[in-house]
């Protein structure tokens, strides 16, 4: 278990749990003629051609200076639709550091739903084993989070933090916050559980394994 965890921590794309539908979609992915923008359209209904590159998304993005590719450039790369650029998009750090704060979408004069596109790009990035290594922490956190609710149906913060630390191999971050959280009654050691936990597991089973991630 620990070994597996470590290996995945180093390269989350190798995590078969979130990409075991690869076989199912393998045929389609092999079909190199479908460009990422067409996939984006099929899966999210969003047309990247609507974007006229005004840059308002990037201008409003609270994290644009953390990103390796600016949000409007992501759309531009998708618009061009070459294999090289598609790969560049999927292996960008941008799609992972995005906070889903929806500012880009709310400000966009053409109402391009960039957050929805980003959500899809994330799952596609994992599916194609292209996720940016710099994003390992973020991906590990998401996985730890889902792992936590897959198990108990609800978020168990303490467990989440421990699980994440194991994945991220960064045991000491936040440890300083924990004692004061405990004294303020904000961290519990015993997980709250959903009674019908098998149903939650079913939901995970049926969605993660049967769905591409988009629409």
């Amino acid at each position, binding site marked *: 278990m620990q070994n597996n965890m470590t290996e995945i921590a180093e390269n989350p794309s190798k995590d078969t749990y979130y990409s075991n539908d690869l076989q199912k979609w393998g045929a389609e992915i092999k079909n190199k003629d479908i460009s990422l923008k067409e996939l984006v359209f099929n899966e999210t209904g969003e047309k990247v051609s609507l974007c006229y590159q005004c840059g308002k998304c990037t201008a409003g993005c609270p994290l644009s200076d953390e990103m390796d590719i600016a949000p409007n450039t992501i759309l531009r790369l998708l618009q061009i639709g070459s294999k090289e650029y598609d790969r560049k998009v999927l292996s960008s750090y941008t799609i992972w550091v995005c906070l889903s704060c*929806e500012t880009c979408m709310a400000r966009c004069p053409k109402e391009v739903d960039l957050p929805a596109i980003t959500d899809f790009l994330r799952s596609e990035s994992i599916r194609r084993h292209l996720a940016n290594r710099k994003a390992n922490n973020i991906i*590990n956190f998401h996985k730890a989070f889902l792992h936590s609710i897959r198990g108990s149906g609800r978020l168990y913060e303490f467990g989440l933090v421990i699980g994440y630390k194991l994945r991220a191999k960064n045991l000491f971050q936040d440890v300083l*916050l924990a004692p004061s959280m405990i004294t303020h009654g*904000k961290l519990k050691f015993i997980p709250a559980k959903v009674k019908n936990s098998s149903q939650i597991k079913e939901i995970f089973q*049926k969605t993660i394994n049967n769905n591409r991630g988009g629409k």
Partner: protein
Amino acid sequence: MKIGYFPGCSLHGTAPEYEASLKLVAKAADIELVEIEDWNCCGATAAHSMNRMLSIALPARNLAIAEKMGLEEVVVPCAACYSRLLFALNEFKLDEKVRMNLQPIIETEFKGNIKILNVLDFLEKYVMDALKNKVDDKFKKKAACYYGCLLVRPPKLTNSERWDDPLRMEAILKKIGIDSIDWSFKTECCGAGLSIARTDIVGKLSGKIIEDAKDRGADMIVTACPMCQSNLDMRRGAINNYLKKDNNIPAIFITQLIGLAFGYSEKDMQFDKLFVPISFSNNNFSNNNDNLKMQKSKVKEVKV
């Protein structure tokens, strides 16, 4: 009057004061909050980052249970949960594929008739009227109303009219005699989604928010989301680290203030749960030295 209630993990975890204050406020307004039976986590950012259908199915199970319980409305105090539940409901209504596939996944019948209220909707609809004549001099403090992202965005989903400069919280606070400042960071992101994985980002984003509120003379930041509140309240280490100075401006839940207006004590409202202390019992903030010291020492330690 009975209304459904979806606490979400935060209110049972990091934000017990939010739950306690909301429940007492509801009680004061003669509303019974009925917790959705056996509810599960909404999936949060993690679910929609990884799998869309999962991000719909998890909230939909809760909504389906609420419907089954005969509830017509459900209050979702956590803005993040609110957004996810609303998203799931909306996708269910608009996307035929979702409608067809959802039932077998959640194994519960779901019609999509339920109404979802965020905490501001709830306060406006059921509490505002009961707040008449609750103006109190002790509230002579300036509030910076902080909405964050998901109460207002995406505007099409939340139906918010003034999503870039909302005034709803201000209007509610006005009812209990609290004046609010006009500021620029009402709906900026606090960075909650990366709270654990990129604490430095949280420090920066939340730092800017706290700085502006402070600069414009706010005495406190009022929130309506446990994620926002916990970032602004608990992440002072990272925030002060970014701002390169200490800040003691508290971040409090709107329900805690309204609870006080209804006559509950600060203990009832669990003011002790706040990392950065605040008190309305005298005219000054109780600048608890111990607490400040703790904040400072933490800053140092994190720097190492």
